[in-house]
């Protein structure tokens, strides 16, 4: 072959996933079909809040091609608890609002599942849904988180004493004292929406019982198969050995698929009862209400600063609309709160965080997990300071940015793993300077003036942010090489299209000095690794990547010891070349990993070379040491049509620092996709409900996703500040593209509309919103 595979880490190696995917050989959940498979459909609540007064499935059970219809009372005898044991432990949570596998008394959101119909095909199950006699007596609905926390508010759920499901906060540096002595104070409220994950492939489960072995295999389009298995094991009272959860190809996750939803318990349970495979694939219409998503955040904030524009303190309240339950703990608003701090020196910060239950689909993180909103608030406040003091936006930021010599920079906020926040590495001023340079920031004013003379309103905006990545506590990678010579890797990581297999194979191939195509990586399968976590919080390059490196290095160490014994040389005389252990300088004296694996397999009666334990294998459960902080700076250029309120994003620039990059092409893909997600969040996506909690946007005609034709050229540049917190020096890159976008875009829009002096305080920015602000100002000018 003659190819050398040194230094694969850092190369834009072509993805191993692509060839089969591009040839239509992907195996997504709906591609999986097994003999005797039945299909399921769910009856879902059409009211946002009510009491079920009648639920009669007798007629539905008789419908053609229907095998069974189950309600909660049919399923409860097979479960170990009334509710699904879901919630992530969190100190602030006041009461348990885990969901039921099916609702049976009270329904708390449109889309909540009430019954499951099993038929030979989905369309017959849907026919039968129409035959279920369901009556719901309406109850008062809570749709606003601020109103929902007022004393006279109705209860979102009757099984809770009130709607404040959690209260937490951040308080350091004595903010109140700073405010009493501050030269200047600005107040601002913000109302920030964010929608759903909207992966191209919705959710799905295929449960296949095996009566011969008394086991259950669950194919689940999930980001966290080990967690899913743990919940199934506990709910069904089975053992880990008897349930396997495995992910097929997954067409995107973006957060919601990290959450365990009721269907992921209902379908496996029903397959066990019927002793037949059952498949459920979520349809898109269903996904708008059946799948978790983010809801609105209301921020009521004040910032105290001095005459030089340096921040002294920020205080306020974040009120978060949490939907009807807490499937992912309270991570999201806490992330938003901490990410507000950004790469800036904020001497004092006091934020009260209130989570309000509302009659909407439960809330859980989507890409960015609250951080875009926190960054947005900080960046808007900085722009306000700039306007107030007549300083440039970039200068105010410069004066507040943490300087590189101040890192590691500790911030006295306690994280959920017990550690305190610490920014490990990065050069924030250089990052801002770099993005301003590649965007030709200083030349913009001239262009803007020329455009205005032609009646065109263009604007430019800037944003800095950090992102905590590499969340632990661990990830697992196992490598084993049997006498066949095949290199098998199992990783607790999961893949939804970001190229995880390539990343893991590339790292191992770099250590083994061989072609990554010969490394077979299995991810997202509880049979492949006993423990694992999966994809969330931009963590897999840090966790699975380092676990892969560690495991690969251990394999090489063991292989060298065996080779030294077999070749009768010293371990120090050996090197790795082309997947072989060679004597340095005399490379024809070598042993392949296959030969070494054979020798280590053990022959009855003979000693294993090197006094080693049998097998050429290693497992690493890489334990993280706290979070590592990626940072970036974004610049956006927009044009606003003042007559229609339409915003056109002309250009977008990102300078991104995620430490060392394993595969730069894949990092850029993540950043680019993240930016598009951010454009969607800022200008297009808006999940809306009426006063009765009825969704107003339940198809893509109403809920607008950003398409390629509304996205600009996205120019990406990198800085590299390796982290000292892991051997690869890598940080996460999956979400950071999204985090800076709303702030940069809105800064640009306000800049374009400077002649009208508008302040934008909501997301998304719609044409109607801009027109109403412009109209007010032009009316006033007359």
């Amino acid at each position, binding site marked *: 072959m003659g190819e050398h595979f040194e230094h694969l880490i850092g190369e834009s190696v072509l993805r191993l996933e692509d060839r089969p995917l591009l040839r239509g050989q992907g195996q997504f959940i709906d591609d999986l079909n097994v003999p005797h498979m039945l299909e399921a459909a769910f009856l879902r609540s059409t009211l946002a809040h009510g009491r079920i007064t009648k639920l009669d499935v007798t007629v539905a059970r008789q419908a053609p091609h229907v095998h069974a219809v189950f309600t909660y009372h049919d399923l409860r005898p097979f479960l170990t608890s009334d509710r699904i044991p879901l919630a992530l432990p969190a100190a602030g949570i006041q009461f348990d609002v885990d969901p039921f596998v099916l609702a049976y008394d009270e329904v708390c959101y449109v889309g909540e599942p009430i019954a499951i119909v099993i038929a030979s095909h989905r369309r017959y199950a*849907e026919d039968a849904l129409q035959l279920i006699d369901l009556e719901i007596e309406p109850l008062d609905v809570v749709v606003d988180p601020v109103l929902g926390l007022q004393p006279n508010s109705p209860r979102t759920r009757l099984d809770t004493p009130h709607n404040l499901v959690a209260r937490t906060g951040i308080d350091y540096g004595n903010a109140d004292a700073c405010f009493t002595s501050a030269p200047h104070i600005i107040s601002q409220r913000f109302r920030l929406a964010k929608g759903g994950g909207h992966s191209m492939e919705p959710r799905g489960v295929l449960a296949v019982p095996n009566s011969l072995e008394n086991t259950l295999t669950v194919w689940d389009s999930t980001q966290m198969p080990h967690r899913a298995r743990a919940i199934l094991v506990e709910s069904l009272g089975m053992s880990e050995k008897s349930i396997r959860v495995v992910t097929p190809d997954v067409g995107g996750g973006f957060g919601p698929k990290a959450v365990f939803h009721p269907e992921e318990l209902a379908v496996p349970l029903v397959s066990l009862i019927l002793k037949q495979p059952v498949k459920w694939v979520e349809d898109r219409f269903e996904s708008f209400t059946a799948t978790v998503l983010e809801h609105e955040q209301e921020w009521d904030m004040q910032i105290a600063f001095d005459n030089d524009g340096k921040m002294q303190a920020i205080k306020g309240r974040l009120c978060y609309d949490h939907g009807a339950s807490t499937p992912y703990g309270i991570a999201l608003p806490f992330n938003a709160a901490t990410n507000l701090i950004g790469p800036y020196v904020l001497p004092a910060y006091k934020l009260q965080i209130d989570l309000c239950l509302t009659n909407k689909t439960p809330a859980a993180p989507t890409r960015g997990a609250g951080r875009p909103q926190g960054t947005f608030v900080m960046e808007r406040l900085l722009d306000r300071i700039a306007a107030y003091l007549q300083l440039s936006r970039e200068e105010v930021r410069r004066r507040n940015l943490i300087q590189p010599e101040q890192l590691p920079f500790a911030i006295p906020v306690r994280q959920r793993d017990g550690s305190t926040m610490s920014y490990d590495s990065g050069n924030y001023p250089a990052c801002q300077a770099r993005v301003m340079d590649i965007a030709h920031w200083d030349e913009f004013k001239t262009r803007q003036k020329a455009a205005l003379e032609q009646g065109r309103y263009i604007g430019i905006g800037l944003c800095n942010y950090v992102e905590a990545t590499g969340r632990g506590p661990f990830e697992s990678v196992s490598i084993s090489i049997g006498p066949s010579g095949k290199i098998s890797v199992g990783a607790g990581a999961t893949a939804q299209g970001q190229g995880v297999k390539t990343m893991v194979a590339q790292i191992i191939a770099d250590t083994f000095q061989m072609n990554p195509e010969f490394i077979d990586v299995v991810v997202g399968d509880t049979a492949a690794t006993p423990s694992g976590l999966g994809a969330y919080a931009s963590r897999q390059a840090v966790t699975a990547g380092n676990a892969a490196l560690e495991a690969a290095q251990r394999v090489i160490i063991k292989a060298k010891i065996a080779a030294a014994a077999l070749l009768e040389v010293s371990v120090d005389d050996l090197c790795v070349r082309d997947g072989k252990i060679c004597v340095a300088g005399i490379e024809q004296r070598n042993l392949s990993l296959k030969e070494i694996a054979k020798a280590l397999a053990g022959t009855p009666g003979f000693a294993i070379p090197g006094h080693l334990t049998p097998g050429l294998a290693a497992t690493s459960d890489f334990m993280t040491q706290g979070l590592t902080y990626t940072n970036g700076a974004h610049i956006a250029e927009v044009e606003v049509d003042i*007559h*229609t309120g339409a915003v056109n994003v002309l250009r977008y620039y990102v300078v991104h620092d995620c430490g060392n990059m394993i595969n730069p092409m894949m990092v850029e893909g993540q950043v680019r996709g993240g930016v598009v997600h951010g454009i969607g969040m800022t200008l297009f996506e808006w999940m809306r409900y009426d006063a009765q909690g009825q969704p107003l946007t339940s198809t893509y005609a109403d809920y*607008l996703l950003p398409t390629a034709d509304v996205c600009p050229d996205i120019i990406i540049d990198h800085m590299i500040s390796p982290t000292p917190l892991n051997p690869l020096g890598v940080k996460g890159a999956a979400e950071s593209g999204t985090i800076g976008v709303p702030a940069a875009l809105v800064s640009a829009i306000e800049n374009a509309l400077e002649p009208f002096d508008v302040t934008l305080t909501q997301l998304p920015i719609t044409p109607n919103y801009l*027109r109403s602000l412009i109209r007010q100002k032009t009316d006033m000018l007359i």
Partner: protein
Amino acid sequence: MKAPDFSYHAPQSCEQALDLLSRLDNARLLAGGQSLMPMLNFRLLNYDHFIDLGRISDLQGIDETPTHILIKAMTSQRQVESSDIIHRSCPLMIKALHHVGHQQTRNRGTIGGSLCHLDPGAELPVVAAALEAELIILSPRGTKRIAFADFAQGYLTNALEADELLYAIEIKKSLEHSGSAFLEFNRRPADFAIVSIAVEIIVDETHKIINCALALGGVQHVPLRLHGLEQKLIEYTSLEDMSKFINSYVQTIEMNGDDLYPPEFRCEVAQTIVRRGLSQAYDEARGGQ
């Protein structure tokens, strides 16, 4: 969502199609399927029979006479967009077609399907209104003609009887010294229009407007011809002094709206695109000399 079971029929001729339509209970004609199939999957409608018109060659094609163009109803939007006849003699329709969905959906969507479906955000009905298209209808009783203004009756409601099918659309060819424009306001290029305008203007040698057609889409359930404005424009020689009048005229129109795009917003946008559309069409009409 999965559609309930149904029977599928693929007649080879108009006669067969009409026969099926009369005989079968709860039957629906199927054109390009770009609106009908999603509605079926959503279970927004329920038919036992679908009669696919796609195999009927007599329903496809574009013909011309010296003064008129005849487009068969099942001609795909892409075929219309690629037609030499349409490029030469109906530039307004070409301009509108660039806004109709995506190129991919135009391969399947038909001109007849769009005109029969009458989505308020669709572009082709607005063109048909501006050009005063005549629709040729077939039924067991024979052939009849109906003006588009009478065909478009209300929200997603056309004048077809249960046993009738749309055969072809006839439009007058554009004349010399004419200019056209099609503008729309939407959030993304391929979306349905929130507000749209189709304009055709004819000028004389002195650049005086001698004829004008303006159709506004998206503000009411069916496209609206702005006859009052058209009349006023014929009396004027230049557009510069027309802005105020255009704005106040548009402000008198009763507009639909929703919480995201309320009537007031649509009204402002309509004023803007009417002014811009007229300006573009007028420039083209003048430039052609």
